[in-house]
């Protein structure tokens, strides 16, 4: 009979589900996040409680079978939050454990290929966020940025920003998932903020941001305009590189 495993949406939670299915030798498994769970009569339901030790055992087991790059592909794919990603990952992990040799790069397998595609999308989004984050300096001397990425990339970009902006306090806040990362000159913490009802994330309010902030945004906007070669105009290419959904928080794309 089909078993539905319900978990909390964390990566460790998912790995715990994998552990549970292997442990109980479950045949037909459907792994679902709490938030997407819909009750049905035709399946056995089980809520899986995240256990770090079990999750680690699965991860260590995978580490022995496949290369680091292939391992990170699994994690990247998970962060895509695609509705069926758990089952794709589960089938791929089954396939990996079942085989004697390392098959994690066998792109002729549909699950492996699907994971490679998902991880590519997430990787692209990660790179885009490293490029498109626009910090604004607040009155408290914190460089603050809002983002709304398609995928959950904050865990992936934190190291990049920590290495780069080691001497300034900064915060990147994902408004879609309502959490952020904050660097206090020592380490990066995960934070959740309560925004004032009047807070407008695209507006640079004088109450929150430092006096020169708008001036620098204006300089950057001007630079963006001056460096364009009009006779080579190619808006299609422009939009391909900077898709419209990201314009909202790009200083150079704000109306004057």
């Amino acid at each position, binding site marked *: 009979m089909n078993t539905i495993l319900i978990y909390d949406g964390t990566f460790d939670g998912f790995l715990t589900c994998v552990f549970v299915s292997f442990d109980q030798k479950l045949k037909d498994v459907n792994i679902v996040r709490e938030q997407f769970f819909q009750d049905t009569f035709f399946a056995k339901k089980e809520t899986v409680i995240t256990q770090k030790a079990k999750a680690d055992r699965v991860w260590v087991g995978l580490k022995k079978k496949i290369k680091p790059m292939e391992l990170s592909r699994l994690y990247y794919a998970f962060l895509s939050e695609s509705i069926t990603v758990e089952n794709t990952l589960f089938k791929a992990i089954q396939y990996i454990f079942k085989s004697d040799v390392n098959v994690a790069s066998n792109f002729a397998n549909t699950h492996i290929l699907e994971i490679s595609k998902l991880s590519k999308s997430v990787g692209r989004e990660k790179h885009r966020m490293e490029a498109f984050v626009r910090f604004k300096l607040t009155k408290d001397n914190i460089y603050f940025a809002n983002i709304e990425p398609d995928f959950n990339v904050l865990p992936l970009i934190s190291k990049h920003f920590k290495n780069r902006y080691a001497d300034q306090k900064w915060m990147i806040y994902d408004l879609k998932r309502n959490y952020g990362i904050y660097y206090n000159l020592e380490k990066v913490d995960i934070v959740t903020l309560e925004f004032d009802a009047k807070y407008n994330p695209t507006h640079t309010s004088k109450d929150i941001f430092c006096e020169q902030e708008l001036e620098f945004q204006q*300089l950057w906007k001007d630079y963006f305009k001056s460096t364009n070669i009009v006779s080579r105009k190619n808006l299609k290419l422009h939009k391909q590189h*900077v898709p419209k959904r990201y314009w909202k928080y790009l200083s150079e794309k704000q109306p004057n």
Partner: protein
Amino acid sequence: MSFDRIKEKLNILADAAKYDVSCSSSGSNRTNKNKGLGDASSSGICHTYTEDGRCVSLLKILLTNHCIFDCAYCVTRKSNDIKRAAFKVQEVVDLTINFYRRNYIEGLFLSSGIFKNADYTMERLVAVAKKLRLEENFNGYIHLKSIPGASDELMREAGLYADRLSVNIEIPTEKGLKLLAPDKNRADFLKPMKKVKNEIIQYKAEKKIIKSTPKYAPAGQSTQMIVGASGENDMEIMYTSNYFYKNFNLKRVYYSGYVPISYDNRLPQIGSPVPMLRENRLYQTDWLLRFYGFNIEEILNENHKSLDLDIDPKLGWALRNLHEFPIDINKADKRMLARIPGLGMKSVYKILNARRYRNLNWEHLKAIGVALNRAKYFIICASNEYEKRDLTAEKIKGLILQNSKSKYTSTLSNQLNLFG
């Protein structure tokens, strides 16, 4: 800092610098040290793209657009009646730091018109880089222009602070240079380039013995050539490019389709289209040389002096060398896989990986992302279906053009009309 004054200077000096196409911020290995600002060790990042679709990764400006030279192809030439401006060293430093902290840019690309003389100008450029590195503890990317004719001492110092140095030779041939920039001579371009090349070689040798040897231009050197200003053919351009890659260990050669900016009758007139398609074909050739293992003689030679505009250079080569095909996807080595039209290096690696597990057929190739509309005439795989007709090169080309849509279709038909 007076924002109005800075704003005006920035507009003038960014506008004047925009014809330099290089904006790469990759290839360096400078990491953040002592909890300073910036890190240039990752691969490059394009922070935004202008409306012409070009990457903006560095704050690209001139220190000044005052210039003692009168090169016909250049907007800042002495005889051109334009607004002139000059940044102070500190102003460039402040702009760079403030843009960098807001994650607008990867670093600074600083070039300059030549005022007084080469050394005087180079000294100012070096001063900016030095200040950023030593006073601001800035570890972002710095690209400095080597001023033609600058002294060896200054070039040595420049490399200690910059990640990349570049001299634009602009005109591919000496006769072209004589015509358009009579004040300049090629030896002046080569002198700083040679110095930097030797310093990099020396740095790499010393680094092996003493680990703490200070970095010297870790992202190497590059140069740029203008395409379509002085009547060179593709063969002349690519052979020059090949010469620079081979003899100066350049990281990149950039090709910049000439944007008409003057009524000088030695040059294409204002309003004539920028040769973007040709520029694209030159870049494709450049890639074939650097990543696909082609020799320049295979693509351009006495019998074949220009690149085809309607098809890419690899397809062009394949059609001239049909005797090398068809290639068996499941058996061929990497070198030959890379030569199949419609396969990029990523597909090549995916094929090499995937075929270790099983023989690949058309479905697999399609899933991998091979452009089968081009590749299918040149390959066989684990399938009974393959191109069995004995097609001529002309016929294959016709079939491919019929079944594919190029983003340049409109440009192409325009250009064909012009000359046809």
